[in-house]
């Protein structure tokens, strides 16, 4: 499995500000995913980020609120813009299984715990 790191691991932010979360993987992967996990909840997919193309957003998530960059095959960023307390969550990136199995497995980073005051 890939080794995935995220920065920052946690942050406390003021409402109205923006935070950019970085995700770094130790091998080249085509597909990277960003999830949100609200307190005590399951994971919800925000968007899929492929290198060289615009991110694909899920219903309920828009690019203006969650802009994503994917400059190369090992790195991606997610920005949480104009934050409000409702954005307080754990944000997780994941990557496809690098063994390229027939079915998609995903491996997750440690997450970024965001608190918005």
């Amino acid at each position, binding site marked *: 499995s890939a080794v995935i790191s995220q920065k920052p691991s946690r942050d406390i932010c003021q409402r109205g500000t923006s935070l950019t979360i970085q995700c770094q993987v130790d091998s080249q992967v085509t597909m990277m995913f960003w999830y949100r996990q609200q307190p005590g909840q*399951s*994971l919800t*997919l925000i968007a899929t980020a492929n290198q060289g193309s615009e991110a694909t957003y899920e219903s309920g998530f828009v690019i203006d609120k969650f802009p994503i960059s994917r400059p190369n095959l090992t790195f991606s960023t997610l920005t949480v813009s104009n934050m409000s307390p409702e954005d307080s969550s754990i944000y997780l990136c994941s990557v496809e299984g690098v063994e390229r199995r027939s*079915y998609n497995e995903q491996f997750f980073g*440690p997450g970024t715990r965001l608190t918005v005051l």
Partner: protein
Amino acid sequence: GESVGLHLPTLSVQEGDNSIINCAYSNSASDYFIWYKQESGKGPQFIIDIRSNMDKRQGQRVTVLLNKTVKHLSLQIAATQPGDSAVYFCAETTPNDYKLSFGAGTTVTVRA
């Protein structure tokens, strides 16, 4: 929409006993399922997966059972240890779709 769900939100288990975590799914087109373990403060960790052409798969101390007739998935943990305390999620995907749909999660607490 269709979703993956769990029967029990919490499970308390005596150390050394076996644990069974259940998951119901409603999308009959799902053909691949994964169990994840998430410890406090960490990201989900891949435990075991199963394809729809199988009904059982075993790993180290874990077994996943798939019953496609009733759309039911379970994770069995043998000889549960304190380190097994975590939230367990099942996830599903459909053919040619890289997106995973996650269930609500079951919190497993191991009693010493």
